[in-house]
């Protein structure tokens, strides 16, 4: 078909026709379309009505569907909300699980979970640190193979028990990655699935290797301490604050005949035949837990049957961790000691008596010897000297010189005899008294040693027996000897007077003095030294006091009692001096 070329007007006309056709169609005013071969009837109104009906039906369907959709949408929204809540719950649970897992990781205990075949599904940080395997290394492994677990009882029995009771606990020995054996206190708990079937086992292990070792060491130390305590001669009892017996050592049971099995828990005062019911002892024991309540040296005696004596001491055992205190009572059996002490005291008294008697005898012998020297030797020498002097005056010239020498020798002998007599027993002491004898002594020392010696005294008669009088005289003499030897003094002052406590003599010099502490610790040797003076004074009930310092002289005060009403061994005999 060859297209004819249309003019503009024709094209415009065609366009107008086309527009008309479109307008008619648009206004539904076309019934049919004419084609080359067919005619198409266009019932647009019917179609439109059908469309309207269809549209109405569709709209109904749409409304229905919309309602259904709205319903479904609501259900969906509800489902979504529900799912969101479930999701939130799941997230919350997940967070909690993560937190709990982190908490499990914070625990020092070794915590792991294995399934019923024993394969590890969880392995915490504590297990990593103690056993040495990382989580990724441990998960999937058979736990008891990995850890070479040594069971105290068969695993089958443990498994049966955990399935039956849901838990098990006991001690196990595990081997760590580096081969170390670890003793653990294990606690197992069974987890069941939703159907109640055993699903997994949670194991919590606490490493008690060090604790066990410490307990063993403590037990050994305790046994060691108990063996020491049991070997002690002293009886030891541990009491609680209510004075109930907690333990006692072997010596206690042997001493008091108690049964170790029967006294624990019993109050101490109810024990035995009333020995421990001592009120003062109970009072002291109750005070031990308080500050400064410890005591020692408390003596009790048991007079039932064979007399026995004990010395008790107690001190608190501080146990801050337990919040309570205990009392350690130490009992020393001093029965034998007391008996020996009484014997010693009796012996000592006898010895003192003998000593005094010997001293008296010695003093009398001194006097007798002095008397004999004075009366016989002294007299004889004096007579011989007088006769020889006469012979020397009348005799020939050639023997005068020799007689002169003999007379000089006799004079020396007479002087030595007089000095010896004086030293043995100065007659002045027995004839004129203590003060006169001291004055005579002072004159001698002043003359021989070159220091000024002044004696002051009441001058009247003082009732001192012969022993005390001699003792004081010899004490003053000893002190003057010391002044002469060591003091380098220029002046010595001796004062005799009555004091409240008795008769007092003070010997004081202005010499160089000395350190008094240097005297302490010296033995009793050195003859009739200061210590000897003090001991003898104490023995007669007197007092000896020494004061001295470097460069400040020395002062010695001696006091003896003069009261007849006091101890008989003070030795007053009423002899006037």
């Amino acid at each position, binding site marked *: 078909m060859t297209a004819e070329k249309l003019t503009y007007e024709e094209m415009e006309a065609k366009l107008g*026709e086309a527009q*008309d*056709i479109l*307008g*008619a*169609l648009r*206004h*539904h*005013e*076309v*019934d*049919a*379309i*004419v084609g*080359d071969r067919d*005619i198409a*009837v*266009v*019932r647009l*109104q019917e179609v439109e009505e059908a469309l309207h009906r269809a549209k109405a039906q569709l709209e109904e369907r749409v409304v229905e569907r919309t309602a259904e959709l709205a319903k479904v949408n609501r259900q969906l929204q509800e489902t979504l909300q529900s799912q969101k809540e479930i999701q939130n719950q799941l997230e919350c649970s997940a967070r909690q699980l993560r937190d709990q897992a982190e908490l499990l990781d914070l625990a020092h205990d070794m915590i792991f979970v294995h399934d019923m075949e024993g394969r590890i599904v969880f392995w915490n940080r504590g297990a990593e640190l103690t056993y040495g395997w990382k989580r990724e290394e441990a998960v999937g492994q058979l736990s008891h193979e990995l850890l070479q677990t040594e069971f105290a009882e068969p695993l089958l029995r443990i498994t049966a028990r955990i399935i039956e009771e849901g838990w098990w606990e006991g001690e196990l020995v595990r081997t760590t990655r580096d081969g170390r054996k670890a003793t653990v206190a294990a606690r197992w708990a069974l987890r069941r699935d939703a159907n109640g079937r055993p699903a997994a086992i949670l194991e919590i292990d606490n490493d008690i290797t060090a604790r066990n070792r410490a307990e063993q060491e403590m037990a050994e130390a305790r046994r060691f301490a108990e063996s020491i305590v049991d070997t002690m001669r002293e009886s030891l009892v541990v009491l609680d604050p209510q004075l109930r017996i907690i333990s006692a050592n072997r010596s206690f049971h042997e001493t008091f005949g108690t049964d170790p099995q029967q006294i624990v828990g019993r109050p101490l005062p109810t024990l035995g035949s009333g020995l421990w019911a001592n009120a003062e002892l109970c009072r002291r024991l109750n005070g031990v837990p308080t500050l400064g309540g410890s005591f020692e040296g408390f003596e009790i005696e048991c007079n039932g049957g064979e007399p026995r004596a004990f010395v008790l001491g107690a001190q608190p055992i501080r146990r801050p961790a337990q919040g309570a205190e205990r009392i350690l009572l130490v009992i020393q059996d001093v029965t034998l000691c007391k008996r020996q002490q009484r014997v010693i005291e009796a012996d000592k008294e006898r010895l003192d008596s003998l000593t005094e008697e010997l001293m008296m005898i010695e003093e009398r012998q001194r006097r007798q010897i002095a008397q004999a020297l004075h009366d016989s030797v002294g007299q004889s020498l004096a007579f011989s000297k007088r006769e020889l002097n006469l012979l020397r005056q009348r005799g020939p010239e050639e023997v005068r010189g020799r007689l002169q020498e003999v007379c000089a020798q006799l004079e020396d002998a007479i002087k030595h005899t007089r000095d010896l007599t004086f030293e043995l027993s100065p007659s002045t002491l027995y004839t004129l008294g203590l003060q006169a004898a001291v004055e005579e002594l002072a004159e001698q020392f002043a003359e021989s040693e070159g220091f000024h010696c002044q004696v002051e005294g009441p001058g009247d008669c003082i009732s001192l027996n012969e022993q005390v009088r001699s003792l004081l005289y010899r004490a003053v003499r000893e002190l003057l000897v010391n002044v002469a030897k060591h003091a380098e003094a220029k002046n010595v002052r001796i004062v005799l007077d009555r004091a409240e406590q008795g008769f007092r003599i003070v010997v004081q010099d202005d010499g160089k003095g000395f350190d008094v502490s240097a005297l302490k610790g010296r033995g009793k040797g050195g003859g009739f030294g200061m210590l000897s003076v003090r001991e003898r004074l104490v023995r007669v009930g007197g007092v000896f006091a020494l004061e001295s310092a470097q460069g400040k002289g020395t002062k010695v005060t001696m006091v003896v009692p003069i009261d007849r009403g006091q101890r008989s061994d003070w030795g007053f005999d009423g002899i006037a001096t």
Partner: protein
Amino acid sequence: MTTEKTRAGQASESDGRTTRYHLRLFVAGDEINSAAAKASLDRICSEELEGDCRIEIVDILRDSRLALEEGILVTPALLITGPGLRTVVLGNLTDTGKVRAAFRRGSEKQ
């Protein structure tokens, strides 16, 4: 089939009477628009053209050749011919103004 009407609208064969306008209406049977066009055409003929017209109804469902010959593509279509006038009005002719405009347009083209 072609049906011609007089001013009175009665269908008749060509009676040989001379009219100014020849109105040939192509319809598709008695479809809604076609029926409406026929009714409108009768009213136009009598009221607007005062009967000075010859109406020819052509049912394309019966014979479409004339329509093809006249270049009619859709029905109802009114082919107006007269002295120096040839124009086509599409639709059910209920819009009288559109028909009047077609007559005026045809007159202006003259």
